[in-house]
């Protein structure tokens, strides 16, 4: 890791300009793109995530580090073939039908992306049919649903049922979250996991897929 010390520091600080320059420096010095990604960027983001979950840093700092990493990754993109970059898993996420709130859902999306998941974000007011249709298309490992209003919670079991009817339920893990949602509710509607906040959404997703 010490070979990317300056890059690591820049990602931790969220210094986008320096991080991009250091990524370029590493490429110019002949470093392998995969190792820059693994040892320079992903390893650093794991450390940032760890510091966040220990409450040593704040959300905007963590998000800035994630943004810094994404900017650096763009520079590495040309060195990878399509499908080369390994993802922790594919996540299809959205706020359920009837609900237009998206701050929490967006935060979960960003943190999952920062942690190495591939995200397809369907936005808000996503009907069960739309979840199913997109699930058929992107074949996600996880479908994640959010609701802020208690009156829209029933759209969660409806979506699970729709996935079932489409024959997708066995291949997909379902996660739910949002202010009125509880662990007990997740069990009732046979979701596979419940997360109380964005940080735990990442660790629950990793646990569901057995990745670290």
């Amino acid at each position: 890791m010490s070979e990317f010390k300056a890059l690591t520091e820049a990602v931790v600080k969220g210094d986008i300009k320096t991080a991009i320059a250091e990524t370029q420096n590493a490429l110019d010095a002949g470093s392998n793109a995969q190792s820059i990604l693994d040892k320079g960027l992903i390893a650093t983001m794991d450390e940032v995530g760890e510091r966040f979950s220990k409450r040593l840093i704040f959300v905007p700092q963590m998000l800035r580090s994630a943004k810094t990493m994404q900017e650096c990754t763009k520079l590495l993109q040309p060195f990878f073939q399509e499908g080369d970059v390994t993802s922790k898993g594919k996540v299809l996420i959205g706020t359920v039908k009837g609900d237009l709130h998206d701050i929490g859902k967006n935060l979960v999306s960003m943190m999952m992306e920062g942690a190495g998941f591939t995200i397809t974000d369907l936005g808000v007011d996503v009907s069960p049919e739309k979840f199913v249709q997109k699930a058929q298309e992107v074949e996600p490992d996880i479908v994640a649903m959010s609701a802020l209003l208690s009156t829209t919670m029933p759209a969660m079991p409806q979506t699970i049922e729709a996935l079932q009817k489409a024959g997708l339920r066995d291949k997909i893990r379902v996660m739910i979250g949002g202010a009125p949602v509880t662990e007990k509710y997740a069990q009732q509607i046979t979701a596979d996991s419940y997360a109380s906040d964005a940080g735990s959404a990442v660790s629950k997703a990793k646990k569901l897929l057995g990745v670290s």
Partner: protein
Amino acid sequence: MEIPTFQPRLKVLNREQALAIHTAALEILEKIGFKMEHPGALEMLAGAGGKVSNGNWVKLPAYLVEEALTSAPKQIALYDQKGNKTMPLVNGNPFYGTGSDATFTLDLETGQRRRVVLKDTANFARLVDGLENMAFAMSMANPEDVPIEDIYVHVFAEMVKNTNKPIVFIADSGKDIAKIYEIACQVVGGEENLRQKPFILNYSEAISPLRFPENVMQKLVFCAEKRIPICLPSGSNAGGGAPVTLAGAMALGIAENLVGLSVHQLANKGAPFLFGPNVSVLDMKSTVVSYGCPEWSLTQAALADIRDEIYGLPIWAFAGASDAKVMDAQAGAEAMFSIINAMLSRANLIHDVGFLEYGSTSSLEMVTMADELVAMSRFFTGGIPVNGETLALEVIERVASGGPGSIFLMDDHTFEHFMQAQFLPKLLDRSRYDSWEEAGAMDLYQRCNIEAKRILSDHQVEPKTDKVLQGIDQILQAK
């Protein structure tokens, strides 16, 4: 000669700051615009001079907003269910009450946090009914044992059955609010009575930044047409729905309120609208919206200043809540901080009393404690009357020059004045150590638990007539 008593008052903005925030709010509406998803409201705004683009994006000229500010009534009065004017919401009058939609409650018997049920709404309403300083009830629960489609109708009916105080209620859309309205009409004997002496106020929320969903606007238009008082804050909490800096979050929240007010006044000029944007903070570690932070108290004190400088409309506020998970020292500190500041800044309708866990858990003990903290704040805000009787020079002379055994405690002046001159706590303990120990060495949480249980078992809520109860049941059963 009578010396007027100065009553302590908190001021956090000067006139220039107040005007700058108001101007920024108008600029947001005129230059940035907002998304209006209710076709009827969109049409009204366009007809009045709003500029519509991309289907439902509206920019609103400042004069439209100023017109709405002029036509909205400067005073709103809420009545209890027996027709007494108990909540005149005019400048300077603070009224406290509970909050809505908690997912959990602290069980009165076990002390454990558990999922709320309909019975909890009944208990909170009865407790509010029995507490002197709680002026109105909200549900304090999103119960798991009622059908979710009609959840707000059921909690409203439950509140009506368990208190005669005014009720602040939640609804989902134009559909359930009509049922709730029907129940309210049953209680007071018809639409006209309800319009004359409203005992209900609706709380609805748009979505920050600048989004006005159809179901929310249905409620706003319904309330305007029926002249049910309403307030319509958004989630413009600093760092979440709004900029992290408080001035920007307030400007956005006020702009969103002004959209609501404009639609509301276009729908029915002169209908009552309670102003208030709810500007708390999104906690930068946990991402919860804080209910114990100093910022929320600060922004509502600022709103009170803007009210006094510009709007003149009564305002919506929060207090008596906490981010603590149990009713501990943090809960007490945060509750008192917001209760005294809401009063010192003269907020009008102050809700959320009794919430723990950033509004996710309700606690009967917390409401009971807050009742005493409100009393304490009222005493403080009353100031110090200065006159011949209170300066008591004659008493000083009498006691000082009296013989041995002459003490103030024995003087008639003490007997005549002590009940008004001092704050006499009921739950806050000042007993000597030995008697405290003898009485069970209880902390405030335990004492509040006992008091809450006592009120729930002793306090009689004047019941509704059989006719009203049958009417409510019919409405609940109707599809």
